């Protein structure tokens, strides 16, 4: 047992830090989203590609480096700490690539994987999973993709599709067997499609901050070649469950708001707390020590999950536990920041002279409710821990 990095891992961490300190200043990207993972810069993604750091865990035959998930965690942690713009390749690398490697047809591997690994043009994917009547209960999807000759004909509606308005491709879960007596678990398939295909309508959903991030996506007799099927017909649900473990095993969920943590730490260190309120000074430190403890625990949980993947262990329960814990940590962090700053923390606007930390806190606080929902609501994750981890009976 050793909960600390070994020599090689520490050397890799240093290499990543040196790379980021050297390369990041020359990269330009949208700073409005600097507290999110989603900064987008193909230029930066190509620099990472040149280091072979996209597809770090992928097998060598697909251009990867065949390194472990612990190494990937070391890389991800530093990317987030430095707020590096990884949005250009993020979904392709984390979700789509591994799914293609595991389930994809040969042509899909040949075509997409080199493009992902090298951060080439047109590699942006959005996920088309949730539907109006299929949220936590993903198996309840109704969108159909019916094989007619050599094509699937898709009809239905998807919702909460992040970035669908900017993406090149969609990654779809649809019922390939329309028989309603068959549960969705055994009747759905995964497929990819070009979002410019005729019959697709994308409409924005504004989030509580008025930002356009999510979309509704409508399919009206959308016809795609059957070669876009990924994996086996009617096994899509099983395939997705395996992918979700990887989605939940990331450190993004813990550290997406790390800037808030850094600013809060600085605020407390610099004694920026009004002297007339000794209760606040005490409380702020106590609350921050809780945050610090939870951050460290969450970080070890992430590394633990990565290590389990590297050692071929089942991670569903561990990844769910980790994600539930980390997303709640982020919400608490943002809440503590508002309470330490007081009423000023409500003031929005990067340019507003009255807004502390360039208006960072109200933005983060408004983002918070989404963390404990996306990728599996905390309650669903607890069900997974109870049923798959602790082996409690299902109702």
């Amino acid at each position, binding site marked *: *047992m050793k909960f*600390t990095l070994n020599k090689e891992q520490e050397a890799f961490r240093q290499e990543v830090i040196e790379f980021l300190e050297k390369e990041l200043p020359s990269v330009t990207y949208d700073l409005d989203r600097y507290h999110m993972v989603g900064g987008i810069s193909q230029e930066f993604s190509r620099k990472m590609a040149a280091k072979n750091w996209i597809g770090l865990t992928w097998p060598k035959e697909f251009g990867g480096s065949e390194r472990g998930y612990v190494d990937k965690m070391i890389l991800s942690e530093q990317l987030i700490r430095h707020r590096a713009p990884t949005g250009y390749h993020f979904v392709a690398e984390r979700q789509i690539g591994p799914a293609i490697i595991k389930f994809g047809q040969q042509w899909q591997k040949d075509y997409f994987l080199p493009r992902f690994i090298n951060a080439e043009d047109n590699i942006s994917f959005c996920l088309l999973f949730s539907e109006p009547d299929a949220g936590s209960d993903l198996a309840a999807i109704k969108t159909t993709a019916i094989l007619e000759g050599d094509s699937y004909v898709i009809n239905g509606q998807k919702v909460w599709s992040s970035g669908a308005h900017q993406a090149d491709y969609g990654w779809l879960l649809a019922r390939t067997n329309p028989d309603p007596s068959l549960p969705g678990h055994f009747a759905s398939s995964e497929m990819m499609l070009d979002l410019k295909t005729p019959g697709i309508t994308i409409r924005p959903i504004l989030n509580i901050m008025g930002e356009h991030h999510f979309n509704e996506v409508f399919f009206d007799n959308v016809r795609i070649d059957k070669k876009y099927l990924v994996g086996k017909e009617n096994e899509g649900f099983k395939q997705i469950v395996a992918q979700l473990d990887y989605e939940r095993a990331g450190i993004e969920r813990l550290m997406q708001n790390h800037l808030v943590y850094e600013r809060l730490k600085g605020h407390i260190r610099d004694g920026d707390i009004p002297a007339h309120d000794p209760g606040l000074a005490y409380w702020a430190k106590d609350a921050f*020590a809780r945050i610090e403890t939870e951050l*460290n625990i969450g970080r070890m*949980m992430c590394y633990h999950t990565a290590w389990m993947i590297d050692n071929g262990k089942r991670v569903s329960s561990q990844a769910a536990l980790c994600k539930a814990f980390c997303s709640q940590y982020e919400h608490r962090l943002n809440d503590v920041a508002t309470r330490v700053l007081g009423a000023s923390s409500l003031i929005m606007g990067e340019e507003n002279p009255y807004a502390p930390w360039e208006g960072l806190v109200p933005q983060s606080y408004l983002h918070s409710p989404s963390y404990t929902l996306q990728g599996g609501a905390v309650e669903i994750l607890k069900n997974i821990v*109870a049923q798959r*981890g*602790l082996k*409690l009976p299902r109702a």
Partner: protein
Amino acid sequence: MDFEFSSEQDMLQKSFADFLAKECSHDLVKDWHKDEKGYSPAVWKKMAGLGWMELICDAIENNEGTGFLDAVILFEEMGKALLPSPLFTSAAMSGSMLLQVQDEDAVDKDLGDITAGKRIFTAALVNEKGEFDHNRSGVSAVSDGDGGYRLNGTRLFVPYADSAHYLLVCADVENGGPTIFKIKTGSAGFSIDPMETLYPERKCVVKLENVIMDASGIVGKVGRGGRYVDAVMGPITLLKCSEMLGGMDFIANTTVQYVKERHQFGKPLGVLQAIQHYCADMATLCEGARMTVYLAGSLINDGLDAEKEISMAKAWISDGYKKCTWISHQIHGGIGYTEEYPVHLYYRHAKENELMLGDARYHRGKVIEHMGL
């Protein structure tokens, strides 16, 4: 990184667990709590025969750079079984204080006696107000002008003082500062009264009234006592956390087992989502506890500073263990509230140890201090 015990550690853990399963049932634990000594000398002898005290002292010395986790594993198993014994106070607390002394010859014999289980030492670190802070020492040592000292003061929560052969106490030497004395229990002026507390493992009030000590009773050097205690507080606290982790793990597992077996409304309790979420919460508290304890333990193994991580562990576990016992009581319902059922042992153990060696709030303060905030 390696998040698993090595095969040697696995074997060690199994040997601890097997021994405790054989020697220490909950019924025996309750009997020992009422026993006049508060522990079983027969079991103590067997523990010594297995080398447990030696393992702990070796772990604390950590010369090999790999041994500290062995003691973590041992105390985790002790915490699951709740075996009452002077192991913590004698081998861990007293042993680690003696190990601070540079002059090995001076403490070699005592350490040998401790590791052989021949002599029981106990450490008296809590003052009359129930505070651990050694700088507010309630024990004074006044020079008698003849090279000796007269000790006066009261210590609370002294584990197994009535069975111990020697007591280590940090006394304030006039013009000399905090100094550790090794006092033979039963010396003139030394009195012991058992204390009744919320968790019935044996502990006593020790009163020192003009106890005469000559200079040979000084452990290490005059004025160094504070430093010795400071230096051992971290590892000792982490071993206490390990014991609490064991208790937490046991109560969480026991409760999960219970909801699989107990039926209401014609179904096992465990199908209810409210119950499942309680169980997931306990699993999360336990996983967090493991992360903090093993992280701090790994740092100590590597010879690195772990003070902040130790405080994070005690802060998390003080709250987390207690919460697990609350959940366990809630889930067990009436049966858990009976004397016969073991849940209350853990409920008591969690509360008492929450407040020992600094509670969660105290250690959060330490976290802030170690971060320089």
